[in-house]
């Protein structure tokens, strides 16, 4: 097992090989047990380091999760939201990057509506860049926390059968999960109407199905992706009702799952559309613990990227 990650940035799940990914998950587990039951949930590890949360897209839950993770490691945290800042006045990503650079940011956590924005940012700054979701590309820390959650619940990842259902085409969560879960030895099946699967999916290390009912009985994990109702306006599917009937996870479908199978959702979820309320609130659901796991995993990522020589 290596001591450090191979890459300086975390831009996409492919930046992590099996050793790297395992290191992050193990580190998150150690951090979690170190902090378990403690009154002072704070570690001095990143004292004097500055982490900038650079959010060009609203995402309160992800920003708060990163903010909490950085603060628990004693880093100084600056929240830089595009709204009301110089960015909304037309400042370019590059100029913003150079400004942050001049302020001495050791780490930049970036959320952006454009795929690849974190990659560009990484070429302009000296600090480490963590992708907190870019366009329809990737969201690697979400995949890490999902893997962490699966490992905690099922005790393993190797050979675990994960079904991911929903708007794969537009989902950064799906892209990161496919790559990371494959790296970790899980078997991924993607289920969606063909309109919501990208052309070129044939090169992904997954099985593709259009039939949710057929794959549910053998699934260990069902991960539901958000489906935006607006998609039906572009004819990705005829109506929310038809989508829900064919691809939604309701109580009937849940009953077809194996006894110990779990249901995941990256949030925010659309109850009634892709997931029924009684499924979201069932004992199978990991939706709430995914949030807590997110902080541990992001602490692990920040520690591994920023703890050493920056």
């Amino acid at each position, binding site marked *: 097992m*290596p001591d*450090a990650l191979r890459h300086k940035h975390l831009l996409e799940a492919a930046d992590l090989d099996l050793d790297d990914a395992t290191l992050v998950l*193990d*580190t998150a587990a150690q951090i979690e047990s*170190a902090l378990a039951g*403690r009154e002072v949930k704070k570690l*001095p*590890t990143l004292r004097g380091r500055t982490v900038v949360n650079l959010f060009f897209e609203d995402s309160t839950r992800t920003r708060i999760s990163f903010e909490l993770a950085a603060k628990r490691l004693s880093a100084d945290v600056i929240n830089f939201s595009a709204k009301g800042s110089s960015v909304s006045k037309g400042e370019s990503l590059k100029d913003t990057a150079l400004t942050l650079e001049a302020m001495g940011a050791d780490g930049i956590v970036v959320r952006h509506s454009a795929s690849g924005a974190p990659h560009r940012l990484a070429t302009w700054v000296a600090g480490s860049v963590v992708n907190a979701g870019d366009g329809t590309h990737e969201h690697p820390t979400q995949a890490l926390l999902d893997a962490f959650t699966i490992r905690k619940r099922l005790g393993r990842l190797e050979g675990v059968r994960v079904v991911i259902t929903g708007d794969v085409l537009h989902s950064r969560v799906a892209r990161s999960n496919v790559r990371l879960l494959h790296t970790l030895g899980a078997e991924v099946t993607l289920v969606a109407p063909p309109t919501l699967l990208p052309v070129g999916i044939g090169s992904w290390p997954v099985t593709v199905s259009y039939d949710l009912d057929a794959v549910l009985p053998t699934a260990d994990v069902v991960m539901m992706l958000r489906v935006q109702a607006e998609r039906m306006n572009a004819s990705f599917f005829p109506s929310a009702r038809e989508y829900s009937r064919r691809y939604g996870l309701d109580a009937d479908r849940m009953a077809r799952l194996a006894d110990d199978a779990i249901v995941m959702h990256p949030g925010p979820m659309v109850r009634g559309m892709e997931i029924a309320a009684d499924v979201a609130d069932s004992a199978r659901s990991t939706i709430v613990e995914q949030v807590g796991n997110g902080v541990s995993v992001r602490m692990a990522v920040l520690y591994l990227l920023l703890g*050493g020589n*920056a």
Partner: protein
Amino acid sequence: MPEPQRLLTADDVTRVVDRMAHQLIERAASSTTEGDGLSDLVLVGIPTRGAPLARRLAARIEAFTGTPVDVGTVDITLYRDDLRTRGVRALEETRLPDSGVDGRLVVLVDDVLFSGRSVRAALDGLRDVGRPRAVQLAVLVDRGHRELPIKADFVGKNVPTARTQQVKVRLAEVDGEDGVTITDA
């Protein structure tokens, strides 16, 4: 490449651990007004080798007295002051007894006492998990060259060394065999 010189054999290590266990029993008894004080004692190992050493001491204490002793570990990596210069490293386990450390006698256990920086990090870590009645320090080898005002309460063997020499403790649980060696730089 200089040859390592043996400081302690496997038998020596066993004998030293036994002696330290006896000292801990005495200290526990003398630090309380009722009973043997062992229920008050928590041995907290500093990974990597402090952790099995703490477990061994606990096992010997139980063998000599018939009383089990609480054991834990506290990983100091996230408290280290040399991460920037030496880089990050994988974390090791932190596990404390369910009954906690508040109001108890905590004895930190490590294999080698050198600069004292590991012990300082462990004290910082301990501070965040609770408020012990007292914290003491047990080490298998004290090789000198302290960089902080830290002193061990229980020492298996004092070894005068040059700063450049390397002292290496090997324990069966981690290394497959017991022994302590010193190597010239």
